Structures are given as structure tokens and as C-alpha cells.
């Protein structure tokens, strides 16, 4: 039941986990001016240099500019967009003021955090 997803504007935000990352510690995202005044209608995750086990222990908290918590400890695995399985569904949102710089992630489990771990958030904009 895969379906096509064609959006006018998709912004991919890359996150590089530093080599000295301590498992379980909060790590705030870099500022993302590209999202300013944009409506986010979908979020997906893609990754390369992180293990599938790492994604399974990756949690994301996203706030808006009023410091309201939109997503609290959201499992990043649920946003996964890279394994091509037919049961994937793009998670839908309707956010207009995401404050990525005050949002954060953490990865539980030291053994699964490798050096220069990279993952990407794809923001579907409207």
C-alpha cells in the first residue's frame, strides 16, 4: 500500500552526532532558519551512518516558538523513511512555528552510537 508523495518543497535537515556524545544526554538541534514562517505538514527520517539499532533508541522532542512541547520523546523510528517497506506511512503534522533550536534528541545506549553518526529529518513544507 505504498503511495506517492509529491511535495513542492522539502527541506532536509542533517544532524551529525559528535564523537564525544554521551548516550542518553539531550542534544539540541542547530538553528534552522529555513523553517521560519513555513508550515510543516509532514516529517520523515532518513539515515545513513547510524545503525538500525541506533534509530530504535533515538527519541526526539520538538517545541514551538512559544515553548509548547509538540512532540515529547517521539520515537524517531516511527518517522523512518528509508527501509522501503510497504507499511510506511508519512506522519502528518500542521506546524507553523517549530523552534528547532530549542528542540532536542537523545540516543539511549552507548554501544550503538558510533563516530560521526548522521541522520536527516525531511520536513515537508507548504
Amino acid at each position, binding site marked *: *500500500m505504498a503511495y506517492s508523495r509529491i511535495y513542492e518543497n522539502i527541506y532536509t535537515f542533517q544532524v551529525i552526532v559528535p564523537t564525544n556524545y554521551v548516550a*542518553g544526554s539531550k542534544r539540541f538541534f542547530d538553528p534552522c532558519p529555513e523553517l521560519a514562517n513555513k508550515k510543516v505538514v509532514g516529517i520523515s527520517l532518513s539515515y545513513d551512518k547510524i545503525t538500525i*539499532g541506533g534509530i*530504535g*533508541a533515538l*527519541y526526539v522532542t520538538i517545541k514551538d516558538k512559544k515553548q*509548547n*512541547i*509538540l*512532540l*515529547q*520523546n*517521539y*520515537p524517531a*523510528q*516511527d518517522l523512518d523513511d528509508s527501509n522501503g*517497506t*510497504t*507499511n*510506511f*506511512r508519512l*506522519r*502528518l*503534522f*500542521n506546524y507553523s512555528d517549530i523552534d528547532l533550536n530549542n528542540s532536542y534528541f*537523545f540516543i*539511549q*545506549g552507548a554501544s*550503538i552510537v558510533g563516530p560521526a553518526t548522521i541522520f536527516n529529518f525531511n520536513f515537508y513544507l507548504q
Partner: protein
Amino acid sequence: MLQPVIESTYLVEVNLGTIGVQKRTNFQFVPQLEGTEIYAIQSFSGTDLTLSPNGSTVATTAGLAACTVTFVIGDDEKIYTLPLSDLRSANIYGFQRMFKNLKINLTKSYITIQTTTGLSNNDSILINFIYRPRK
């Protein structure tokens, strides 16, 4: 099946402690969810998530199938012994199971272990509540 447009989410972890058949484990008080309208709920297994936010082992897919959840609305057990497997997105074509604006009394709601097959002591059950914040 419809897909919800997500407004807010809160991931609740319920640690089962020492497991036993017919053991009930109540949810903790979550102030963020008090009085909110919950319109979608999903669960996860150890196949989806390797470690919980607290670093606990997540119940396996078989372990999830061995548990049910009862959600209390007011004082009534309106959703009674719902299989947790039925809330797992991977089991329902990737969808998030939707409900009609439930105001759940979380501390009276509980998870029941129907059989200990696939479960271990101190496994965690993770349930993601998708809700509409209080205005």
C-alpha cells in the same frame, strides 16, 4: 483507514516490574495528558525500539501480544482489554490507531499481562498518545 494530523504527542513508559499472569500495572500520572482529547494511540515492540527513553528493554513483539490495555474514561472501563498488538503500527499497515477524542483517566487505566510468554522481568511497554492540547 485514516491518518491523523498530529497535534501533540506524549510517549508513556510503563515498566512491568516482576511479571506474572493476570498482573495489572497502572499508568503513572501524566499531567500533560490531564483533560486532553486523545485521538490516536500507538504501541511499540522491541523490534521497533531497542531501548526505552529510560534505557529499559522494550517488550518483544510476542511479549506485546501477551498484554492487553484497559482505558478508563471517567470511572468506566470504556476500552476493555484491548490487545496491545492492535495498537502497534507495524501490525496495522503503518497506521496509527485512531479514537474519538478520549478523555482518559490515565491513573485508573492499566495494562494486564495475559501470559508471560515473550516477556521478561522489568520489560517496558511504550505507548504514544497523540492528543489535542487543552485550550
